[in-house]
């Protein structure tokens, strides 16, 4: 038993090294540029594919393998460099999360490009020559390559530590991490430093991808399967803390290995499958760590970057005539069934749902200044609540209310813990809770239907028609959004924005800022839940993917594309994103690449979101 535990620990350490290598690059990039690089997993995947090709090109053998490792790292570094030069450099001054959206576009682009170049089949790479065997420990065999990896982690930690502490370049990186504007004023070329950091970070991810090849095939799922883990490692360790990232990688990997080693255990008559816990182990660690230590294990409060600090845009009261115009618009929408075909109504029903979801997220991001990476949790809770009630025979209205109540309750619970933190910690905490909920829905077969989900959740009677359901969805969304827009300039809306602008002043002016943030969280969750409830009845079925990361990312993309500090932004974002995706999937086989390119282009043209950027252009016009 002890021998097993030891071997499992070593297994964990070997996995930790690769995870650490990828996280290392992400951490460096975030530290200096403040960019949450969603494309980091894509760099890792590219590293693996590049290494496969370079190894073949070099004719295999020792030279082929190690040449491929080095070559892949360099090639991916070059790609990171190109991404910095062509995309990121143009949007450093945009709100931080917009850069995340741009890198999300890069993810889509790289994925399709990889499919195009290397084809759909998984490619098993060569093993490391000389490291194909295994050594025996207590009668168990441990691959030599794992031994190599176990040593590699601390070696890379030491190497990077040396690079950062003992070289002039490292000194510049550390200085720029604290205050890039001041570093520039001391003669440090920020642009070149950023480019080099992006290249190094991408190169490290590429290196990890190449080094992963003896353990896993190059496959198109590598990017997204590692990216969430790497975010978790970076945040658990403490953003920007390199030793923290290693510690976190070790903790998470070893916990997983132990869970696997424990297997299925009978605890006082209950059978507990620890191996199933590996589905969500990293997020349980993340939630625990962030609740106890909001800045991660070895992290400290990140220094505020000057110049990059975002000044929130004003949210002016709607002009006279606005409500009249909005009412006319609604009437036009409701008259649409007279002209449009059924599919248009179905598409608009989706848009109404996503407009609600995006607007609910914008309450958090725009009004309260809190980003949520796990907004699908409340959307999904609304959907599950409504579906379960409907399947239990509840009337339609009761079902929708059930979804709303479940989502609101969850938001209250999660919000209570989340609102005490802020920034990336808060965003990652919401992600962790969303993933835990996802895992519950995924596993709880008896209630949620497990990974297959629930089917046959159609609205009853007159609402079964797509036309009436469209009218219902559109009217509900319009009324909710109308109330929301009023709320923006109600005492609550003002107080919330005051809390966001300057929490200390708000507190000194008699506001309970924590309660306000919590209320915003609950309100946001409730509206997302309403969207989820409407959604499930329009689709007739649901599965855990309503709670999964891609749904949260979609919501983020909509809000940021539209402009998160405007009332109309999330709606425009939902409209543009949904129509774009719908149109592209029907138009081209490589729709992912085109959608990615479109997202990147939109972020470059509209750095403050479509509506937000128009507002700025007009404000500038007013001034001149």
């Amino acid at each position, binding site marked *: 038993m002890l021998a097993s535990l030891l071997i499992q620990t070593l297994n964990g350490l070997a996995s930790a090294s690769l995870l650490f290598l990828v996280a290392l690059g992400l951490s460096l990039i975030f530290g200096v540029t403040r960019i949450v690089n969603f494309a980091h997993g894509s760099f890792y995947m590219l590293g693996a594919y590049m290494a496969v090709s370079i190894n073949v090109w070099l004719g295999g053998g020792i030279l082929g393998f190690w040449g491929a490792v080095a070559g892949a790292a360099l090639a991916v570094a070059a790609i990171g460099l190109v991404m910095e030069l062509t995309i990121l450099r143009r949007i450093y001054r945009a709100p931080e999360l917009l850069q995340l959206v741009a890198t999300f576009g890069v993810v889509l682009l790289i994925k399709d490009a990889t499919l195009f170049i290397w084809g759909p089949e998984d490619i098993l790479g060569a093993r490391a020559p000389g490291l194909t065997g295994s050594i025996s420990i207590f009668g168990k065999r441990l691959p030599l390559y794992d031994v190599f990896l176990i040593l590699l982690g601390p070696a890379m930690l030491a190497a990077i530590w040396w690079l950062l502490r003992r070289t002039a370049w490292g000194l510049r990186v550390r*200085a720029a991490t*604290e*205050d890039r504007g*001041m570093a520039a*004023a*001391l003669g440090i070329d*920020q642009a070149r430093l950023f480019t080099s950091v992006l290249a190094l970070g991408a190169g490290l991810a590429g290196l990890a991808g190449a080094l992963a090849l003896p353990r896993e095939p190059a496959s198109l799922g590598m990017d997204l399967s590692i990216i969430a883990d790497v975010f978790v490692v970076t945040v658990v360790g403490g953003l920007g803390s390199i030793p923290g990232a290693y510690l976190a990688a070790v903790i998470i990997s070893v916990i997983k290995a132990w869970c696997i080693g424990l297997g299925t255990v009978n605890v006082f008559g209950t059978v507990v499958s620890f191996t199933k816990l590996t589905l969500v182990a990293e997020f349980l660690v993340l939630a625990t760590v962030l609740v106890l230590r909001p800045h991660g294990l070895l992290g400290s409060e990140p220094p505020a970057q000057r*110049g990059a600090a975002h000044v929130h845009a004003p949210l002016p009261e709607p002009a006279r005539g606005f409500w009249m115009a909005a009412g006319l618009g609604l009437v036009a929408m409701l008259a649409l069934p007279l002209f449009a075909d059924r599919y248009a109504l179905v598409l608009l029903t989706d848009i109404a749902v996503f407009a609600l979801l995006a607007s609910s997220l914008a309450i958090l991001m725009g009004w309260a200044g809190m980003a949520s990476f796990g907004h699908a949790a409340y959307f999904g809770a609304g959907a599950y609540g409504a579906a379960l009630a409907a399947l239990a025979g509840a009337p339609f209205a009761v079902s929708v209310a059930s979804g709303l109540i479940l989502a609101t309750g969850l938001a209250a619970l999660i919000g209570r813990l989340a609102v005490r933190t802020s920034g990336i910690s808060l965003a990652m905490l919401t992600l962790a809770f969303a993933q835990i909920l996802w895992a519950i829905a995924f596993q709880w077969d008896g209630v949620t239907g497990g990974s297959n989900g629930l089917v046959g959740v159609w609205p009853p009677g007159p609402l079964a028609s797509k036309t009436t359901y469209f009218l219902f969805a559109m009217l509900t969304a319009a009324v909710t959004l109308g109330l929301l827009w009023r709320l923006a300039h109600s005492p609550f809306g003002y107080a919330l924005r005051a809390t966001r602008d300057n929490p200390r002043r708000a507190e000194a002016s008699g506001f309970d800022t924590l309660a306000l943030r919590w209320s915003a969280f609950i309100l946001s969750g409730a509206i997302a839940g309403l969207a989820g409830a409407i959604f499930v009845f329009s689709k007739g079925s649901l599965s855990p993917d309503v709670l999964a990361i891609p749904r949260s990312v979609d919501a983020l993309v909509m809000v940021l594309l539209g402009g998160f500090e405007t009332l109309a932004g999330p709606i425009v974002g939902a409209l543009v994103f949904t129509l774009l995706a719908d149109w592209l999937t029907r138009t081209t086989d490589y729709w992912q690449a085109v959608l990615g390119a479109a997202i990147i282009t939109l972020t470059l043209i509209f750095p403050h979101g479509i509506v937000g950027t128009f507002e700025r252009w007009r404000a500038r016009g007013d001034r001149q």
Partner: protein
Amino acid sequence: MSRSASTDAAAERAARPLLEIDGLSASYGRATVVHDLDLTVARGEALVLLGRNGAGKSTTLKSVMGLEVERRGRIVFDGQGIDDWPTHRIAAAGIGYVPEDRRIFAGLTVTENMAVGRLPPRDGHAWSEAEIWELFPPLAAIRERRAGYLSGGEQQMLAIARTLMGNPRLLLLDEPSEGLAPVILERIAEAVGMLKSRGIALVVSEQNLAFVRDFADRLLIIETGAKRFTGTIADLAADPSIAERYLAV
């Protein structure tokens, strides 16, 4: 031929002011803070910008440095137009900037902070650590301490020291006296005087006239982003109405 031509060019450059600002306007997002400002700084001269906060002093200095503001207008340093240069290139050309809130790198040690600022020698001279310790003796004793643990006065010394490592010809000091106890102020003022005596030109934004009295060559009062007065301390003293208006002492 070419040699004499370059000598001529050098002579011509030497005859021009070190810094010339012509029609500078600067804004932050929605707010325009400096309007159509002109000023010049001669080689080795110490110019003091006086005026209330928000008057545009800090913004003027940031504009010279190309930092965090949108600017329009012409800025010529040592004969070269620098108004479209990135910040790091301006620093490398010989302008040192010490911001109002010091902006020291809190996680780096004192010597590391100074190392960040190090640039190649200029005019055959490079500031050494030894010279810095001489200028600011308190720093020598805490050279391995993390800058985040320094007191306000020590941080101000470090901020100046760090900039000196870039061997500037022109030093921009933004409110160096801000928030410092009177006893510390005297030491800083003394050090600034020494820098001037070594030929470094200065633009100092200040509110505390007493602080600059010993080294200021010329005063320039700005209000709402425009020039209101320029002259020596003596000129200012000679016109009590100005002193009354801007510097109620």
